[in-house]
């Protein structure tokens, strides 16, 4: 009887410890913007996307356009839907998972392909270039947003 009680006591201390940890983690709930922010995000992203083609390479306006595009897509990505129910949460989770795996996949393969292409077509060894930070962020965000829209469309 005494051993059962001490076991129970031990389990309960463990659980209360986990509880306080869980509460701390819960405080960092996924940060989301209201649905109205989504339109603003799309406007910023679209304007920045057009601006990308109108600006000259390696200038300040081009850099501003590049990062505005990321900010716009980020706003779209973290804005709530009109009705943010459990199906949407599920689809959102799937889109983030897909985007993460797909973006890493492309980021790994892309330099390999350009390296091989350079080697075959110009017959000279280029320096092995990685994918830049902007490219990875752009891949992650655009794949997530597009795949989420696709998932929503097939769950009409």
């Amino acid at each position, binding site marked *: 009887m005494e051993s059962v009680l001490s076991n129970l006591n031990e389990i309960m201390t463990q659980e209360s410890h986990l509880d306080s940890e869980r509460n701390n983690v819960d405080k960092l709930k996924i940060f989301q913007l209201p649905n109205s922010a989504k339109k603003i995000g799309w406007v910023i992203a679209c304007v920045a996307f057009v601006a990308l083609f109108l600006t000259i390479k390696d200038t300040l306006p081009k850099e501003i356009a590049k990062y505005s595009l990321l900010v716009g897509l980020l706003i779209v990505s973290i804005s709530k*839907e*009109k*009705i943010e*129910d*459990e*199906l*949407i949460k*599920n689809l959102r989770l799937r889109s983030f998972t897909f985007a993460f795996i797909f973006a890493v996949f492309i980021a790994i393969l892309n330099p390999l392909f350009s390296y091989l292409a350079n080697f075959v077509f110009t017959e000279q060894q280029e320096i092995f270039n990685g994918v830049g930070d902007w490219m990875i962020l752009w891949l992650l965000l655009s794949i997530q947003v597009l795949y989420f829209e696709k998932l*929503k469309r097939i*769950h*009409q």
Partner: protein
Amino acid sequence: MKNRLKVERAILDLTQEELANKIGVSRQTINSIEKNRYIPSTVLALKLSRLFSKPVNDFFVLEDQD
């Protein structure tokens, strides 16, 4: 898992939209459940059960492969 959501909805004479509003989800969610593309959470299943005044087992049924 099979479901008889469409039948239960017909008994109460509700559209997908009306049922969705009553339990606080989107029409797409109801449609996805009816078409067996989405398995609802326990909370949602119990909300449906309360609305239909029937046990959950009456309209969500396990199949052999589950």
